[in-house]
């Protein structure tokens, strides 16, 4: 189940869409991110890996502005997040979509209404177009049109992820953050979700920042991988770079029993 990975010609020439420099985040006495640097290039799918509790989600949340950082700068689409006015920030937030780990669909609203929330907030659309676009997104993420009028509590885990992805894509964002998109899905569902992300990335020209544990996803859809450990980026680059790394954590991650099984089956 390998998708042909589109190899970037030369990384230096590419447009940096998220630039993280020297970011420090901590809670109380504990410092989790210690001067972390990371670049995300336009149009790539970046897989972000790291052990539990190393701060993968913390970095995502810091970029999204959900946790405060102690030091460092974060630039998204060339704008420094700390220097943005409230209005500038609002403008910027339309350019990203987020898929939370548990979906975070609004439980009081149907799937269609969930997708329409950001549309109603940011766009001035006619009712007809609002409905049609929501239905289009529902089909794009591979949901059955019947799901449109269901409440999140009536959906299965895989459907919740798809519905949440449809909501993340509601405004045609340039960047999509995915927090463990395939966790809790069966291997077939996870594989389909990976393919879906790759397809959408190609058709919509998305940049995807994906926090994941799923070795299959790393092998099949990610252009580049960044590994987090000890509060910094341990290594970044395509999967080959990860495989060659000597770092003990990376070695056990990419050469462990499960990793060998994936390599044998996929590559």
């Amino acid at each position, binding site marked *: 189940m390998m998708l042909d990975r589109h190899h970037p010609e030369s990384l230096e020439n590419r447009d940096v869409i998220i630039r993280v420099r020297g970011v420090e985040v901590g809670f109380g006495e504990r410092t989790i991110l210690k001067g972390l640097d990371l670049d995300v290039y336009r149009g790539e799918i970046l897989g972000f890996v790291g052990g539990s509790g190393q701060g993968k989600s913390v970095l995502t949340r810091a970029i999204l502005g959900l946790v405060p950082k102690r030091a460092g700068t974060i630039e998204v689409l060339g704008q420094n997040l700390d220097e943005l006015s409230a209005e500038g920030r609002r403008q910027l937030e339309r350019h990203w979509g987020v898929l939370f780990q548990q979906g975070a669909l609004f439980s009081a609203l149907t799937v269609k209404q969930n997708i329409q929330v950001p549309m109603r907030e940011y766009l001035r659309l006619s009712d007809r177009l609002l409905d049609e*676009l929501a239905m289009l997104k529902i089909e794009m993420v591979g949901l059955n049109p019947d799901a449109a009028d269901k409440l*999140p509590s009536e959906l299965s885990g895989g459907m919740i992820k798809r519905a949440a992805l449809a909501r993340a894509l509601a405004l*045609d964002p340039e960047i999509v953050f995915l927090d463990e998109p395939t966790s809790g899905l069966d291997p077939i569902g996870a594989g389909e979700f990976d393919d879906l992300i790759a397809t959408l990335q190609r058709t919509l020209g998305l940049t995807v920042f994906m926090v994941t544990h799923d070795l299959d996803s790393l092998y099949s859809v990610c252009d580049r991988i960044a590994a987090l450990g000890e509060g910094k980026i341990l290594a970044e680059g395509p999967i080959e770079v990860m495989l060659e790394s000597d770092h003990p954590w990376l070695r056990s991650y990419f050469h462990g029993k499960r990793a060998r099984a994936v390599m044998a089956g996929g590559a």
Partner: protein
Amino acid sequence: MAVRLSGPWTAPHAQKVEALADDIAAEAESFPLVLDLSGVERLDTLGAWTLNRTRHELSAKGQVEFANATPEQKILLDEAAYRDFQGEPKPRHSRFVDFLVDVGQSVAGAGKDMVGGVGFLGELVSAMIRVILHPRRFRATAVINQLEQIAYRGVPIIVLISFLVGCIVSQQGIFQLVKFGATPFVIDLIGILVLRELGVLLTSIMVAGRSGSAFTAEIGSMKMREEIDALRVMGLDPIEVLIVPRIMALVIGLPLLTFIASIAALVGGGLTTWVYGDISPDIFLNRLRAAVGMNTFLVGIIKAPFMALVIGIIATLEGLAVEGSAESLGRHVTSSVVKAIFMVIVLDGLFAMFFAAINY
């Protein structure tokens, strides 16, 4: 005929995009119509969808083609190909029919609640008997903990509102009775009203709001996260573990709170009669002793455990009825409080009729 499109065909410009698409549809005369995309700066799903929709609308008149689309735009146009989203229209009823359906459902729901409540009471009693037969299964720590939450921590607010209500009732009593020159009778009024009705009613309403809602929320969120199922598969009876201690604590705690509330209301009433009616505290106490008997006090306190049972049963039933979503939790907490307060007042009315009938 060829139309050259230009500028951004994206969501932020939705109104303009839609208006332009409508213009194209209205003004198209000769076919095949060619839509030239060479000038389009940006295209997103909204733009692609609108173009596809226009093409579909004109398909009856003639062919429409897209020209000079970049490869990315072509993929997007394919992805957002036109499809019909109009499902079957839902059957619509008149308002009157909807209203009748609503009333019917409410009545059926109330009946179901009644049956569920009685069934649950039976389950609860049998669980309590099991606990009494096997005293080792009695969870003293849980009961004490709940007593602290329900009774001890509830004292300040219940004392405060009872005190204030005592003040208010006695002030109005003085204002009205002074017209008949019967000011001292305000003490009879306060004593009987507070001990028989107000103390227990105020306490029950406060406990329903404070502890009933907390029960529903606790049990509801445990149900949502499958914690109740986890207890069950460990061979523990959730009713015995979670609900019996709570209801026992309520049944013990509510009479205690009622007593405290009544005293607070009497103190409030006494202070007010002193200030507004010039009745000194020793006269107040003397007259109070003459006005109320042991039976007055007992009428109030006997009702308290029953109120506790009603509040506890409604709160746990609502908690167990919670389904997956947070919204459902909120709905059940609200309905737990509303139903409990309603039932407490109804029960108080029934008791009033009962005690009047037996002349107690």
